[in-house]
């Protein structure tokens, strides 16, 4: 019954990816923890954390695609929501250090002692509880997105203007978090974490569990995105993407639909950031760099915007390439990334999944032509087609 319910809201491809993510959430920790290091199937801890990091990027990409691919809102500042979620988790991890810091203050994190602060700022209270931090991970990015979106969408800021102010948003946060007086560790950010939920954050088992949690959250995001996209609301979003003012003349409050999906997306990005921080061991203001947000856009474009699993493929592939290139040929990575973006824009406007889709369509056509005449151009349920956005009128 549950599987049946699942299948009404997720297509076959989505169900396959969810199953795959759940499988690796189980198998990768098992392989890391139970198999001897000499086994060819043993996955070393560094690799577990590396793939875990890629998966947090994949989660960010899924969130970005929900607003860009399905609703046409090109955010160049989604890294801000990711970083805010990361900071919320980082604050919890800082509070867990307790008296084990360099200055051994039982309450104040090291950087506050260093700055001669006498007591904990009000906004650090509560972060010693995991549940509170977890709530803030979704609430802070969610509220910021809600306030930002409420103003922007109500004033009908769209297209490139919206992209520019999202970029300004993340840049403003970057500058703010660099300041020591903000109370978030300034330039150095938050690091030197010890435990999460009482478990040593460096331990293999903790890292495996963080990996499993990340994979499960990506699976959940795939489900939530599928649910939204396949509902009538999803059809409204695509309508907004393709002909916004038509949607308005049909009586839809376009701004509210955008606000809904924008806020959900920011919360997903916040969760991605919160899973990222314990796996890489640090969060600092550089996560707010506009370049990070733009990179996330490239992942989505490479994988295929307007598809649910394209962003996951794009994020993992591009970051795998980044890890390889920055080690092997560090000086050419940025050129490679730029070239990738140009190639995808010029030759693969629908990304890797779009390429796969058109191959499949051509193959099906060839098979059908052998059998009989040409098929009518019926819609493909997984259609990745994105026409050029057209203004009504």
């Amino acid at each position, binding site marked *: 019954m549950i599987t049946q319910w699942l299948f009404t809201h997720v297509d076959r491809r989505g169900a396959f990816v969810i199953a795959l993510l759940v499988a690796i959430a189980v198998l990768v920790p098992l392989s890391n923890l139970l198999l001897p290091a000499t086994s060819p199937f043993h996955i070393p801890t560094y690799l577990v954390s590396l793939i875990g990091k890629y998966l947090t990027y994949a989660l960010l990409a899924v969130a970005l695609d929900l607003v860009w691919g399905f609703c046409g809102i090109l955010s160049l500042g989604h890294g801000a929501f990711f970083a805010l979620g990361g900071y919320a988790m980082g604050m919890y991890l800082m509070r867990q250090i307790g008296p084990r810091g360099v200055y051994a203050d039982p309450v104040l994190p090291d950087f506050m002692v260093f700055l001669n602060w006498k007591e904990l700022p009000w906004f650090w209270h509560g972060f010693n509880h995991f549940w509170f931090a977890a709530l803030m991970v979704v609430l802070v990015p969610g509220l910021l997105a809600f306030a930002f979106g409420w103003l922007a969408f109500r004033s009908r800021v769209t297209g490139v203007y919206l992209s520019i102010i999202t970029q300004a948003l993340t840049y403003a946060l970057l500058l703010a978090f660099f300041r020591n007086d903000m109370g978030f560790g300034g330039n150095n950010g938050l690091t030197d974490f010890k435990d999460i939920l009482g478990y040593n954050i460096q331990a293999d088992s903790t890292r495996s569990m963080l990996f499993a949690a990340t994979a499960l959250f990506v699976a959940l995001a795939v489900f939530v995105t599928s649910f939204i996209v396949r509902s*009538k609301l999803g*059809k*409204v979003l695509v309508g907004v993407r393709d*002909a916004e003012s038509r949607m308005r003349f049909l009586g839809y409050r376009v701004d509210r639909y955008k606000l809904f999906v924008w806020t959900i997306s920011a919360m997903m990005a916040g969760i991605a950031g919160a899973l990222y921080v314990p796996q890489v061991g640090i969060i600092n203001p550089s996560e707010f760099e506009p370049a990070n947000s733009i990179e996330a856009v490239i992942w989505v474009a490479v994988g295929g915007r307007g598809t649910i699993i394209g962003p996951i493929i794009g994020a993992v592939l591009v970051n795998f390439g980044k890890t390889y290139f920055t080690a092997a040929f560090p000086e050419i990575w940025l050129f490679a990334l730029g070239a990738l973006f140009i190639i995808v824009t010029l030759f693969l406007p629908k990304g890797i999944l779009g390429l796969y889709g058109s191959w499949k369509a051509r193959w099906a056509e060839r098979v059908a032509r052998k059998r009989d005449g040409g098929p009518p151009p019926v819609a493909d349920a997984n259609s990745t087609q994105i026409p050029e956005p*057209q203004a*009504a*009128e």
Partner: protein
Amino acid sequence: MKAQDTLLYLDGVSVSFDGFRAINNLSLVLQAGEMRAVIGPNGAGKTTMMDIITGKTRPDAGDVYFNGDIDLTRHDEAEIALLGIGRKFQKPTVFESHTVEDNLVLALAGPRSAFSALFHRQSHDEAERIEDILYTIRLNGKRDWLAANLSHGQKQWLEIGMLLAQDPKLLLVDEPVAGMTDAETAETAKLLREIARTRSVLVVEHDMHFVRELDVKVTCLHEGSVLAEGSLDFVSNDQRVIEVYLGR
């Protein structure tokens, strides 16, 4: 005439863009159940008039009332659409990456909140309405087609079908036969007359042949105000209309 007895009531409406008076002291009254054709040269203010009625443009002066007592200048596009005014654009504007059926599903009258859309399930009633409309707009064989793959004329019909699905009291139709073949034009005139049996329609059109086929009262606009109004024969014999629009 009092606004109370009318479906649409425009009185003394003016609007200018950067000093250019697009609409100049325009008055126009439409009765419930009436179909009206609006003609006029380019720049006469036909589309701007529709923008004002649908809330896209706010007039600088004048009254715009719907259904007798609803002041349209106080509402935005979405609210006006829900009050019962549907609009077809000059350029066919359908959702190209949706199927014909989904286009109608989106237009179908019903709750419009994001929450209800998220958990929406199609009822038997809705399925029947869609079936009806598909039949009316002669697209019942193409329900699974992507709207992008329809011909120009079929897109126009789909858009008219979306208007029907909205179930409006008043339809504003902007140049419905632009770019259509003669057969399609005749079919569209038939379709609009069918629709006008149950609701009011305001059609803007250049094609005089088509206007003749509609066989309704005609209003000719020029430089933002009404130049002549009456039967097509009356209007097309008006000296000023001939001068500015029909040509000698």
